[in-house]
Structure formats: structure tokens, C-alpha cells
């Protein structure tokens, strides 16, 4: 069960539309240490595609997703942040 996942930080973006859930989640993930878990709550239906994309692009791990209809729940584990810079 997703509810059993322990997390280090919780962010509720209910009522906010793109890009705000991604923007706010990005700010939190940016300051979390690698391995820490963010529990994100959204109501923007686009989040079901956007948050997995956020995790994929940032290199974080999407532990679980739960679509409760009006609300979407996500658990994101901060990945290693090493990047080789832009060439």
C-alpha cells in the first residue's frame, strides 16, 4: 500500500495548475538530500503525466502513484544530483 511509504517531506499543491505543482515540487526536490522521499499531492489532472516526467528528467525515482480521481498522490525519491554540465 502506498500509504505505508514513509516520506521526509509532504507538499500539497491542491488547486494549482501547471506549471506550479512541478515548480513547487522542483524547489523541494532541489533542496532535499539524495535518498529522501517527497510525498506530493496534486489536483491538476495533467500531473499524472507531468510528475513522472519531472522524475525522469531530474533523475529522481517515482516510487508510487495513486490516482484518487480528484486528487493524485505521488511519492518521489530524490536521486543523485551529479550532472556533467552543458556541453
Amino acid at each position, binding site marked *: 500500500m502506498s500509504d505505508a511509504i514513509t516520506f521526509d517531506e509532504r507538499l500539497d499543491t491542491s*488547486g*494549482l*495548475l*501547471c*506549471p*506550479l505543482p*512541478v*515548480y513547487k*515540487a*522542483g*524547489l523541494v526536490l532541489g533542496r532535499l538530500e539524495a535518498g529522501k522521499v517527497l510525498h506530493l499531492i496534486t489536483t491538476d489532472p495533467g500531473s499524472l503525466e507531468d510528475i513522472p*516526467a*519531472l*522524475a*525522469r*528528467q*531530474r*533523475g*529522481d*525515482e517515482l516510487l508510487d502513484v495513486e490516482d484518487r480521481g480528484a486528487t493524485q498522490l505521488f511519492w518521489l525519491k530524490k*536521486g*543523485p544530483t*551529479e*550532472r*556533467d*554540465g*552543458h*556541453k
Partner: protein
Amino acid sequence: MTLLAENPTPATRAVEAPVKTKRIALVAAKGTLDQAYPPFILATTAASLGWEAGIYFTFYGLDIIHKKRSRRLKVASLANPSGPVQLPNLLGAIPGATAAATAVMNKWMRDAKMPPISEFVEMAQGLGVKFFACSTSMGVMGVKETDLIDGCLIAGAAAFLDYAATAEVQLFI
């Protein structure tokens, strides 16, 4: 090929090699309120994904980073069949129609809890989004460096193309 094979999980990828920082290069060429949003939505999203992002403000797009003019961005009521106030062109031309369309769009944005452009500018700059101000547009339209918000790099097409050349995504808005 399965979808999974084409898109390896970030965890797998991170073990194999460090993630290369991607870049998006945007051109903001329009100075209406409705057209000011897309470059900022895309730039702040890209920066949130861990990408580098830059916006080249050119021609009427310069208004978005103009200290005074950015506070007066409007939505066209004329020749804008999708606009917030559905008016025939004949009525769209009457005084006050543009102000009405602008007021409706601002209300839409407020009701949807979307930040105003001034706040998007701050969000973008806070995330390190690079702002290029087109020097040619400035010369043509008589815009001085002091007219623009702080933190803009005044540059021509070559400097922007140099930035855009290594961007994975380039969009003209």
C-alpha cells in the same frame, strides 16, 4: 522495443552515467498578455526539471521585460476570435474592448491561482533562467537598458544562436 527499454528508469540511468544537463532556448516575440505566459511556463518548468533555460525577448516580446510596459500587457479584443471576450471585430474596435478582454483574462488567471507575469519573471530569475534582450529591437523601438528589468543580457542574434546551438529544445513563441 518496449517503452521501458526506450525510456530506462532514472535510477538505472543514474547508475550508468551522470545525467547530462539539458537546455531549452525560447524566443518570446509577442507582447500581449496571453502570449507572455507560454515562455515563462515553459522556462520555469524546464528549470524545475533541472534544465538550463534561456528566453530571448525580441520585438514586442521586449515589453515583457520592460519595467513600465510589462505592467500594462493587454489581450487583443480585435482579430482575436479565441479571446476572453467574444466580440465581432466591429465591436472589438470600440474603446474599452481591449481593457475588458484584459480584465477578463486577468480574472481567469487570478481565479485559477496562476501567478501574474511579474511573479513569473521573479520565479524564472530565481531558478536561474537566462534573459536575453534583443539589442536590435531595443535600437528599433528606442528601448534603453535602464528601461528593462535587472539581470537581462543585451545581445544580438549571434549570441542567442550560440546559446541555442547546444539546446535540445528550441521554440519560437
